[in-house]
């Protein structure tokens, strides 16, 4: 994989390299049809065709109509548009919103902003394995609840929520249901025709598509207040010149995923199994997340008496993440792991290995020995507390 001479990459939940078919298609589009699809001339129409094809490809991946897809700059924007857009649009009906404590920052911080603007947010806690029991949602729904936002796959632990059950609870009460699918789309089967979901966020760079483009699935024209105002593009919901080549890349990434998800999952399950087996005898090792099930591309582990930042450095040139990948430089212990009941110190020692399509068995062996070595080294360094 790219850059492999300098390092071994095991941070696929943070971002993935471009699939070669994606890169090829983007190059073709850049050379022939990368104009403004809103322009009423030949060049514009060629570009519009490219965008429609991508919508079709993404529609197939998610089993939805191409018309229900809004293009954005990524899942952060999709989440903001869905949550701010729905909350503001429905503010006159009621101001109660529900989400989880283990959401990504691009959801948590949006709800925090809404709290400051007069909304009331219920922050649901998961069980220690990360799962949200549907009863907790049901008992929190109120007459003035307008929106529930629950992520599909957790980016730190890989736990998969029961979107069907959670969505059904929302539908019964006529509450909008948003799902942050950034870690799920293109990685596990997602059938939005079958799932009771109104809004679904995704981002291309998590499944071998380009960075800088994402999408928001909007069921049946669910009304949203736009985040931005401008030209009439995308039914005024999201103005700006469409990045035709990026959208084409997202489309191909979706098409590739459609045919490869089953193989990907089988392969990742094997690799994750070996990785866990290779380190599970380390004293004090804790798996953060579901013991069984969960997305096989993510393994999050902590050990006693080791500092996460030092662990990361001691493992170089293996590229893994501590805390939330989206902001690994912050030194705060992961709020996700704190919500699962870990102490600050335990949370601080957490390392997320995330595997991807290019991960090899040799990468896994390297990771195992690297992790074992680093833990041994740091434990040797650590002082005992005086008796």
């Amino acid at each position, binding site marked *: 994989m790219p850059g492999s001479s300098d390092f071994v990459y095991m941070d696929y939940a943070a971002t993935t390299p471009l699939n070669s078919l994606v890169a090829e298609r983007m190059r073709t589009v850049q050379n022939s049809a990368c104009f403004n699809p809103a322009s009423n001339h030949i060049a514009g129409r060629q570009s519009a065709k490219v965008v429609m094809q991508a919508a079709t490809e993404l529609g197939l991946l998610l089993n939805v109509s191409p018309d229900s897809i809004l293009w954005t700059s990524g899942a952060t924007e999709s989440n903001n548009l869905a949550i701010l857009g729905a909350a503001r649009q429905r503010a006159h009906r009621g101001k109660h919103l529900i989400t989880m404590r283990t959401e990504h920052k691009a959801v948590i911080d949006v709800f925090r902003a809404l709290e400051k603007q007069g909304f009331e947010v219920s922050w649901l806690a998961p069980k220690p394995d990360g799962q949200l029991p549907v009863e907790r949602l049901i008992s929190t729904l109120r007459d003035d609840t307008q929106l529930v936002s629950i992520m599909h796959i957790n980016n730190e632990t890989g736990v998969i929520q029961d979107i069907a059950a959670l969505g059904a609870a929302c539908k019964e009460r006529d509450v909008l249901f948003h799902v942050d699918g950034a870690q799920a789309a293109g990685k596990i089967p997602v059938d939005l025709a079958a799932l009771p979901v109104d809004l679904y966020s995704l981002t291309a760079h998590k499944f071998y598509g380009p960075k800088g483009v994402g999408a928001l699935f909007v069921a049946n024209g669910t009304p949203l207040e736009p985040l931005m105002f401008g030209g009439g593009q995308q039914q005024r919901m999201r103005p700006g010149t469409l990045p035709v080549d990026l959208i084409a890349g997202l489309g191909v990434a979706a098409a590739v995923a459609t045919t490869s998800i089953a193989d990907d999952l089988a392969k990742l399950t094997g690799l994750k199994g070996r990785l866990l087996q290779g380190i599970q005898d380390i004293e004090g090792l804790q798996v953060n997340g579901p013991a069984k099930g969960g997305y096989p591309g993510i393994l999050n582990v902590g050990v006693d008496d080791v500092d996460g930042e030092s662990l990361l*450095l001691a493992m170089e040139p293996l590229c893994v993440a501590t805390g939330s990948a989206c902001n690994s*430089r912050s*030194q705060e212990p992961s709020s996700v792991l704190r919500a699962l009941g870990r102490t600050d*110190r335990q949370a601080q020692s957490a390392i997320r290995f995330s595997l991807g399509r290019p991960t090899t068995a040799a990468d896994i062996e390297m990771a195992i020995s690297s992790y074992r070595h680093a833990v041994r080294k740091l434990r040797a*360094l*650590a002082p005992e507390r*005086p008796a």
Partner: protein
Amino acid sequence: MNIDPYNAVVRAYFDCPEHMGDIGGGAVAFFEDQGMRIRLSAKVVDGKIKKLGFRAWGCPHVIAAAEAFCRQFEGRSVAELEEFKTSQIMGDLAVPVEKTGRILVLEDTVRSLRAAIQDRITNQAQD
């Protein structure tokens, strides 16, 4: 954007902490604060620091700072310990300001080490 959080000195000291360990039978100081833990131990002969050792639990800067301290003061006189300030280490290791508190744990440990050495000298004198 601070591209590499660790400069070459931090990387070298973290990779090969030559002074890692405990000096048996010497003066010992332990300090714990801000989630950091540092232990220093020293062998002192005739007012001179013959050997320094450390153990540390913390981020790479804390570990490197402890190693830096040992390298700096091994062979120097106990009196010189008074001069110890973290400012030079902060500079040499390019420690980001937000980690100042952690490095101050080292200062506390050094102070406590000085006291421990003083103690031993006094005790030995009383022997």
